[in-house]
């Protein structure tokens, strides 16, 4: 790590010497492994150490970005000079520049983002876990006929960010996951689903038994799927489908979408946009959170932002550029890779839990859809028009009745946010974006 900080310090010195007003350097240095076991055999054993360095220079309010995976001194120096050279060709933009001096975060510990144990797990043990997971999954149910594979993935390392205002931060991250994809077959129709557990800390992974059981249940319950009739009905979003809806909101509350007018929420700040029961939070300080961080990719402290409170849109999430452009303050939301400019993005983004159990929510519906999976095409961020491919289980008389596929759900995001009527008590932090179960009073289901 000291070696990488030295490289970054040299970049700043060279860029300043070359005439840059401001400069920052981001280095990502990770070690990762991926193991795939299928039908008891190791199909893939992959290991890598991805590294990359990105340089941003600012001069007279002009800027440029260069990056390289080649960290040899002469290659890095070439990229510093290249950045200074091409920056001259960009136009003056008064909003360009590093964050102001008093906003920076610090390198701390205590969020539980790095687990040293992950680096110590022997490959044999990882193979064994994936293999056990698959064996258990295949045994769960007689409808399960094939496996798409069991996977172990891990990654650990550092992000280093230095800038010419004197900020010098390093943060360590780790994560590991186990996942399983299964196949069921009946009457010559195959069905598939998967389940997973991913955590920053190895000991927090779900037990293999529970991952296997859920993967098998989710796969087997699709057997005998029908195509529903076209009709307008209440729809219950399970946590997976709910996370997809939150993903859409995540894309339209970021400052860059607002100033580019690529959002249906551009003029809605401070207004009620949803039912008053709805609270949506972005929290980069969540202990052990999949997307928690001590500082963002411009060096600002990670923080908790209430985005929607009692149905009112409270803030947009901004990096420095979009904050200046929108005449507001950055929210510690800058994200970038070494090869890209910072852009605002969510961290741990979630809908606050409500008071209903999933059974109560399903029980409130005579005829409707329990939505468990959606496809990603079909949403217009500018207008909020929503049309997604859908899978789920049909609800009859308050009970889950039979699986459905090959249908779509459609509506408009404004109407949907204003017709959320029951929010579940089952919020779990499984990924970066998490939702409890909730109900939307009416959506068009298009099928037969």
């Amino acid at each position, binding site marked *: 790590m000291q070696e990488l900080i030295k490289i970054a310090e040299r970049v700043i010195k060279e860029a300043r010497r070359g005439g840059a007003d401001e400069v920052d350097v981001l280095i990502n240095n990770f070690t990762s492994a991926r193991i795939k076991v299928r039908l008891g055999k190791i199909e893939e054993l992959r290991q890598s150490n991805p590294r*990359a360095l990105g340089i941003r220079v600012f001069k007279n309010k002009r800027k440029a970005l260069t990056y390289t995976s080649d960290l040899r001194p002469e290659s890095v120096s070439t*990229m510093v000079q290249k950045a200074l050279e091409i920056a001259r060709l960009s136009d003056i933009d008064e909003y360009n520049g590093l964050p102001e001096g008093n906003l920076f975060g610090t390198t701390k510990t205590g969020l539980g983002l790095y687990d040293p144990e992950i680096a110590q797990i022997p490959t044999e043990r990882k193979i064994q876990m994936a293999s056990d997971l698959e064996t258990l999954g295949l045994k769960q149910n007689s409808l399960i006929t094939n496996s798409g594979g069991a996977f172990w993935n891990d990654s650990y390392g550092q992000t280093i960010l230095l800038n010419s205002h004197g900020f010098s931060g390093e943060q360590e991250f780790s994560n590991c996951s186990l*996942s399983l994809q299964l196949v069921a077959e009946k009457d010559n*129709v*195959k069905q598939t689903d998967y389940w997973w557990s991913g955590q920053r800390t190895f000991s927090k992974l779900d037990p293999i038994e529970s991952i296997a059981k859920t993967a098998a249940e989710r796969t087997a319950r699709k057997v005998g799927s029908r195509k529903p009739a076209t009709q307008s009905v209440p729809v219950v979003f399970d946590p997976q489908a709910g996370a997809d809806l939150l993903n859409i909101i995540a894309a339209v509350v970021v400052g860059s979408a607002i100033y580019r007018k690529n959002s249906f929420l551009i003029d809605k700040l401070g207004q009620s946009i949803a039912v008053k029961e709805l609270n949506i939070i972005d929290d980069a300080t969540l202990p052990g959170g999949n997307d928690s961080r001590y500082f963002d990719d411009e060096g600002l402290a990670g923080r908790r932002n209430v985005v929607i409170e009692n149905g009112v849109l409270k803030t947009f999430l901004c990096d420095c550029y979009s904050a200046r452009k929108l005449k507001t303050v950055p929210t510690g939301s800058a994200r970038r890779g070494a090869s890209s400019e910072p852009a605002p993005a969510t961290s741990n983004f979630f809908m606050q839990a409500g008071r209903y159990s999933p059974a109560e929510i399903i029980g409130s519906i005579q005829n409707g859809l329990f939505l468990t999976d959606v*496809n990603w095409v079909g949403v*217009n961020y500018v207008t909020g028009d929503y049309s997604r491919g859908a899978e789920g289980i049909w609800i009859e008389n308050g009970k889950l009745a039979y699986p459905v596929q*090959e249908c779509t759900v459609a509506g408009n995001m404004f109407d949907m946010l204003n017709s959320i009527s029951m929010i579940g008590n089952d919020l779990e932090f499984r990924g970066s974006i998490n939702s409890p179960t909730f109900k939307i009073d009416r959506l068009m289901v298009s099928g037969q």
Partner: protein
Amino acid sequence: MKRREFLKTSGILAAGIVTAPAWFNMGYSKTKPGSNLQDMETLFSVSAAEAQRLLDRALAKGAQSADLFFEYRTSSGLRIEDGIIKDISNGIVLGMGVRAVQGDQIGYAYTDAIDFPKMLIAAETAANIADTANSFKISRFQNISCKNLYPVETYSVNIDLNRKIELLNQADGAARRFNSRVSSVTASIADELRQIMYFDSEGKNFQDVQPLFALRVRVTAEDNGKRQGANAARSARAGLDFLDKPNNTPTVVAQQAATIAITNLDAKPAPAGPQVVILGPAESGVLIHEAVGHGLEADYNYKNLSNYSGKVGQKVASERCTIIDTGLLPGSRGAINIDDEGHLPSNTVLIENGILKGYMHNSISARMMKVNPTGNGRRQSYAYPPLARMTTTYLQKGECTAEEIIRSVKKGVYAKNFSGGQVDTIKGDFTFGVIEAYLIEDGRLTAPLKDVTLIGNGPDVMNKILMVGDDLKISDSTWSCGKDGQNIPVSVGNPTVKISEITVGGS
């Protein structure tokens, strides 16, 4: 975590690219693949003898074959927004990956340090997939020569940035002048040059230089409180002169995006439920890619993980359908001189008159299914092992004119432009997103329709193709195909097609 394969037009804000490293200025303007071994050896600091040592190491635990993949990618990116050049970037990605193969098991490791001891470690890591007493010999390297499907006079990464800035200004101005309702314009040029070098234990050795160029324009239009955005793009394995073609000029591309955005200001909700659907030419190849293409990638099929598994010789589509995957279309985004494991690309007939003829193979799937490779082994970069992937996939043209196809429909939906699609290869259900569509009433296109998702099952929908147009066109948009975490450039194509019934996700 989603295990679905997808196709999408890559966004306007895709990471940029830019550079002219020292090696690049040394007479590279007319590179023929295979003619520059000396340069690549220098570039990657590795000789044939060292390649042999690395392969030896990868085979040390008894693997039956091994390969080395070296890559040096230079990229450049430029973006105009609000009338000013805002983002400008330049980057280098280089590294090498080692694969050891035992049956259909692979060990893979890579390094992005061009440093022989680190390459040896990568080879040792990959070797661990095998644990046998076998000892396979490495054959003498034979350079594979191939035709150059993407000859470029001057690589665009080598062209003065001022020239590209001029082109972006043209796009920006053209969109703004086009209509007073245009309220904002963003345009970008991204180009890259990928230099690759390959050695394997069977003695195959090749080099290739792959240019890739893209222009993207996004336009937002506003009128009376209504707002819409739309994209248009062009991409090819070509130089900047690709934009000189009449249909590719920045002005034409910008006007195209502006036209869609303005048209969609008046869009009405699409109908819901099963409808007669006509797909316009070119872009609708997304249907072929999702409904047929992914399911015919052989790695799924030898594992029985496709709804097309075991169906060679059976009828899987209307007899009007002949579907081809070809890596041989000169200059196309899906073109490859050679695949990423040393096999020449081919014209692979996947479905002929509705009958399934075969799959798209990489080395491993071909060996497992005891057939010849089809030149479809592709990887995103040195960081990934090759998979069976598509190149340019299309439906062969038929005999109907577009006009008679549209005239034949009393009520239905005409789908013209698409954001992308997705498929579950195991059951075969696919969706695709339509971003420009019109209602068909009494044989004529009438009201524009809002964004909508179409959903169906592969063979089911392919059997409902009633009419095939004589107007086959290959799309030159920025299609990017995702599978198992790897994204690669591809092309798609389609003539005008009439489908008797497909579920339209209207509201």
